[in-house]
């Protein structure tokens, strides 16, 4: 009983601490480090490399924000979170920003009191099965055993999908992607379901990726994006516009290669405003003029980050698809820097 009283006290203390944090930006600056929540390891999105350095698509968002706010893309403390612990970590103030392929939903935004600052990956839930199973559609999965990460929207989508198609399944709830991979490869489940991007990333780490197929059905909309606590709008703005800067940079052709050149001034006022040679956008955010320049210079623009971590030339091998710029028929559309 002692233990549970202690846990209860911890919970209470955690909630107290959570509400005490108001000016996240001041806290981050005072700390000199950004606490960024990421996954416990999903290759391409967020995973430590051989040197123990965190790399990935979501990690780049953390680094861009750190570069914009603190001037150093390495001033980030990465906090691995599971599907279950991530929201408590953010609500309690343990992390300043959650960049962990988290789906933007109504109840998370409104009821859980979080602020989704945008979408950095438009995804949908898919299914992966071994080729040997001979399944070509998710509707043929009647009676299958399905591995699923617990505490995610995919868990709810899965229940809805099987229910609406009137077929049965056996859910095997799992905490982390690594455990899911182990169970799936051992044949303890027939199917692994999560966001299609996550499936592609997981498959990339298999010994024989070719032996596994992603089924054609995408059963949900999963707009994944970084989020912060509700109610701290200054901090929310900083993260939102750091993300927008990466997206807009691709649109305007600002890359890590030419950014120094462009930062000297160009004929395009929008680029000038972004990079701080014109206007006072940085000041409005409570940052200096070169915030966006640093954010983009850290890991390049959206296209560069995509190509380096999860693009078609990487083992994950995802096509841009919905995540192309609006000018190329995709959904990425950064509001104007004005």
């Amino acid at each position, binding site marked *: 009983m002692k233990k*549970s009283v202690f846990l209860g*006290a911890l919970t209470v203390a955690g909630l107290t601490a959570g509400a005490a944090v108001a000016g996240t930006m001041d806290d981050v600056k005072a700390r000199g480090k950004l606490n960024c929540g990421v996954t416990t390891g999903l290759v391409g999105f967020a995973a430590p490399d051989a040197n123990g350095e965190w790399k990935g698509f979501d990690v780049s968002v953390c680094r861009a924000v750190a570069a914009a706010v603190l001037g150093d893309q390495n001033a980030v403390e990465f906090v691995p979170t599971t599907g279950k612990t991530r929201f408590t970590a953010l609500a309690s103030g343990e992390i300043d920003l959650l960049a962990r392929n988290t789906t933007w939903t109504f109840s998370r935004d409104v009821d859980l*009191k979080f602020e989704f600052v945008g979408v950095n990956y438009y995804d949908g839930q898919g299914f992966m099965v071994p080729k040997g*199973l001979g399944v070509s559609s998710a509707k043929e999965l009647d009676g*299958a*055993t399905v591995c699923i990460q*617990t*505490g995610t929207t995919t868990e*709810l989508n899965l229940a809805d999908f099987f229910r609406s198609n009137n077929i049965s399944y056996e859910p095997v709830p*799992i905490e982390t992607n690594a455990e899911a991979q182990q169970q799936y490869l051992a044949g303890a489940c027939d199917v692994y379901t999560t966001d299609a991007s996550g499936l592609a990333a997981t498959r990339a780490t298999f010994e024989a990726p070719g032996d596994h197929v992603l089924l054609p059905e995408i059963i949900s909309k999963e707009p994944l994006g970084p989020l912060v606590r509700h109610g701290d709008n200054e901090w929310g703005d900083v993260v939102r516009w750091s993300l927008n800067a990466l997206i807009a940079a691709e649109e305007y052709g600002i890359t890590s290669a030419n950014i120094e050149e462009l930062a000297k001034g160009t004929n395009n006022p929008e680029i000038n405003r972004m990079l701080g040679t014109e206007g006072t956008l940085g000041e409005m955010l409570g940052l200096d003029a070169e915030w966006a320049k640093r954010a983009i210079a850290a890991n390049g623009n959206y296209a560069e980050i995509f190509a380096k971590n999860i693009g078609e030339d990487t083992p994950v091998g995802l096509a841009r698809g919905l995540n192309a710029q609006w000018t190329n028929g995709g959904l990425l559309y950064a509001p104007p820097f004005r």
Partner: protein
Amino acid sequence: MTTLSDPPKEQFRLSMLLYDTRYRSGTIQVIALIGFMLLAAWLINNTAQNLAELGKPIDFGFFSEPASYDINQRLLDYDSRDTHLRAALIGLLNTLVVAVLGCATATVIGVVVGVLRLSHNWIVGRLMTVYVEMFRNVPVLLWIVFIMAILIETLPAPSAFRGEDPAASMLLSDSVAFTNRGVYIPEPLFSRSLGDIHLLGEASLRFDVSVNLIAILAVLIGGIWVSNIIKRRADRIQESTGVRPTTWYLRLGVILVPLAILLAALGVHFGYPALKGFNFQGGTHLRNSLIALWLALSLYTAAFIAEIVRAGIMAISKGQTEAASALGLRQNRIMSLVILPQALRVIVPPLISQYLNLTKNSSLAIAVGYMDITGTLGGITMNQTGRELECVLLLMLVYLVISLSISAVMNWYNESVKLKER
């Protein structure tokens, strides 16, 4: 002549609360109590206020919302349209199942190992020591994960049972299948079933009770009761004549014959698991998560119980054994008639806390994806609704009630075995 008068009545003065030793300790305790209550009030007030500021006041309304997730092991009917409350109930039953199975198995293994550890046989004694030291010195979470990994990695997948020349086959004339998704065993079915009693209609806490089960239990209990009457009669005859009539066939008969008649009347038969589609269908499916959790908790707790049993036996003085053997009792009779009844007095109190530990340790279930109450109410429900405080408070209350109930039952048992001083 002197007159004696009563000593003057002492007037109570406020300062006596501090300076009079009769009152001082009381004063200090009252002040400490007030301080503690203020602290608690401050914590509660602070929490409530912060939650209100966050816009998340304490509210249990989410319990009547649909849970929207599925649970694999369910003892009652449940689907994703049922409420969070029902999901919590399903989880609670799963917790109780693994706790009861675990406590029973741990007791059996613990008692056997504890007695064997005292064996004069060197190899048996040392082996038991190795077992005890191995299990109680490694965290139980590691055992759970380890056993799960062994089950998943070493047993064949259901697909290995398929084909002309399958890599794996079912055991015991095709009735039991060990797979890396669990063990499938035959289930009893009733062709002339008496049906179920539905309690609480359509409510979230609705409960189906099988009439078959009630009938079987009633016949069993009745049989044991009659059997006890026969035993007492035999005792009486033995006391008056010195000769004990042979009654074992009678006693066995009054239990088994009515049971067999009832089972035949209900048309009991077994449903065997068979490979169909992706998985085995039919039969009872003992999931790997349950087996891993059950085994790990039992083996871990049994190591502690073995030590408790050994300590209890060693606490009985050697003179008792010697006196018993001087009376001509055999080894096993000495153990069951003389040593164990006395040792129980020492064993039961620490055994209670081992049962409590096992029950609370079962909350590690999520490590292997076993959907106990921590996995449903304290896991998915908490995560999907974002009601951390409500869920954790309720979870604590549930474990508190389970633990106190176990304590109450075991304390009652302890009363009945402890030394009766006359």
